[in-house]
């Protein structure tokens, strides 16, 4: 049985206690109805989504690493931001693996922060450095091979993740927090400046979680669903202003301070109601 709305349960119990002695009425009746709600279907749906994204991530990473190894700079640069979007969409799952996540997605700054040197740096951002900063693919074949191996391992291990409703709700908010703290500042893609691709993917990842939980949310608070719809629309509309080509975005460097402020505010305005999705577990 799903947990009764608190208001209703309190009412019922208050009525039941109406004839009782004072001291009994002062006990805390709300706890009595607490029972975990069943969100297995939603959890399964999300896991399925994550696996789909990971399958695509492996395929696209394969194409990307092939381009790097064959020295096709142009192709590699084109594939780089698109392949990463599959990873960014399912980041709440991908980052459950503390060892694999940095091997695939660490920035040099992260490595240095952890007290390690450049020799420990691997993954997408290392190749990003080669492509945009050094303007070469030479010497990156090994990094590319390792990246593909790590990506495949990530895909295999996703099956084992214990997805919970809490992970979903927290994950959705975390995706937006990622945007607020690193994408909006251009710190994620400091060489390629393809931050808006990651931005879009993070928001899509958060929206997916909302869509899966939407019926539950609507049941508890219809206004919250409506509010979230509006705020997602507003954020996507802002992002659309910075699209270029078929499925691309302009460089982060083209954004003005006013642009990033608008985007940042739209993220915050979405984040507040998004953090209320936890009501489905109350």
């Amino acid at each position, binding site marked *: 049985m799903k947990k009764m*709305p*608190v*208001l209703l349960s*309190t*009412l019922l119990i208050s009525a039941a206690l109406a004839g009782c002695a004072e001291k009994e009425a002062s006990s805390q009746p709300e706890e009595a109805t607490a029972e975990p709600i069943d969100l297995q279907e939603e959890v399964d749906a999300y896991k399925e989504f994550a696996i789909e994204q990971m399958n695509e991530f492996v395929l696209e990473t394969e194409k990307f690493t092939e381009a790097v190894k064959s020295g096709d700079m142009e192709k590699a640069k084109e594939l780089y931001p698109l392949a990463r979007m599959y990873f960014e969409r399912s980041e709440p799952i991908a980052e459950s693996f503390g060892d694999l996540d940095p091997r695939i997605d660490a920035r040099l700054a992260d490595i240095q922060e952890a007290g390690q040197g450049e020799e420990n740096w691997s993954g997408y951002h290392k190749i990003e450095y080669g492509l945009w900063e050094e303007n070469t693919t030479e010497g990156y074949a090994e990094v590319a091979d390792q990246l593909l191996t790590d990506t495949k391992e990530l895909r295999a291990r996703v099956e084992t993740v214990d997805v919970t409703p*809490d992970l979903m*709700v927290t994950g959705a908010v975390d995706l937006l927090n990622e945007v607020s703290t690193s994408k909006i500042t251009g710190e994620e893609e400091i060489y390629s400046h393809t931050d808006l691709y990651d931005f879009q993917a993070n928001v899509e990842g958060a929206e997916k979680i909302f869509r899966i939980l939407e019926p539950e949310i609507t049941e*508890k*608070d*219809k*206004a*919250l669903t409506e*509010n979230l719809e*509006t*705020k997602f629309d507003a954020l996507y509309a802002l992002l659309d202003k910075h699209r270029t080509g078929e499925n691309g975005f302009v460089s982060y460097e083209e954004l003005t301070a006013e642009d990033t402020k608008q985007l940042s*505010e739209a993220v*915050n*305005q979405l984040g*507040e*109601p998004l*953090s*209320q*999705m*936890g*009501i*489905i*577990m*109350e």
Partner: protein
Amino acid sequence: MTSTDEKWLEKKISRRSMLKITGASAAGAAVLASGMGGVAKAFGFDILEDDATAQNKVRFYGKHQSGITTDTTTHVYFASLNVLVESQNELQELFKTWTPLAVRLMNGEQLEEMSQGVFTPPKDTGESIGLDASNLTITFGVGPSLFDNKKLGLGTKKPAELKELPHFPKDQIDDQYSGGDICIQACADDPQVAFHAVRNLVRAASGKVTLKWTQTGFTSMPKEKDKKATPRNLFAFKDGTVNPSPKNDTDMKEVVWVQPDDSQSWMTNGTYLVVRKIQMHLETWDRTSLKAQEDTFGRHRDSGAPIGKKNEFDEVDLDSKDTTGNPHISADSHMALARKVKDRILRRGFSYASGLIDETGAYDAGLLFISFQKNPQQFINIQNALGRADKLNEYITHRGSGVFACFPGVQKGSYIGEKLFNAF
């Protein structure tokens, strides 16, 4: 308000905050007690009461808003907001949402009695837990741009005198610290309480407003013979010696409170807030001789007395001369110029110190000048009189500016700004 908001309010409102239904009926409001017998509601918002038992508390309800003639506190957090709402109805709802929250904040209460569900963020950001009301006041005002926003349909209610301030000589106004659709002035004797108030009001209005600029400020009143003395600004001069007394009703009616027929009817018992962010060049000031400092203001630094006199409140005589026949108070001193104008204003300023100016490494410090007047023209006349001549100009730069129409006070059963929305 979302239904979840209503739920937590209904569930956890403290009993002492509840309104007696009879009181609200007298106000002509259609009041219904909720099913829980909890919070009284009128027009779909919650009516809470001032908590007479709260420590260091200023009343929310009254003829005038708090934070204007109530005692000056030691801290301010001033916020200017732009609205994101797209209709008058939404704007009205925003002020209805804010009203009970403001009462709670000024009671020194949290926005919820205790942390509720663990899977959602707490309703109250919580940094004021354990602190009392700290004489918190929250003053709301609306800027000219709100009336120019066509979507809100308030154009015909814009008072003629509510317009952005003109450019004054030597102004270096930066849009980054200027204007705004709504202002919230939160004053308290604790900086954390003041900040908490604005933070939570803005958070409760997520998606409806956005912060345009904010400024913290502080001031300290030394005690002299158990009485609060005039505070000093960062140049060490007493600031506000000639201020009218907020305790003097006649003066306040003359200087501060809009009287019937003065303006648009909804402004009666309201006032205008002028805010100026004035950078004070501390480095240059600190290498200025005491004599030059005193000549700049026209007063002695330590006593605050007019030059040539002994005490702060001694009569100012612009004609008095020293033994060599020169006037004690030079004609281009700040005080001499200010006294040429008949207009009066009620000043309620604060100092600020906000880190450094990036380009120069100088202190970003100065005066968060706030004044209240029944017509912004009073301020404009004074500022024009200071003009280019003011000796003080060499040491200060006006960087931010704003003018806001502050609503009259809120009666129990009503909400902030109701008169604006219901004016004809």
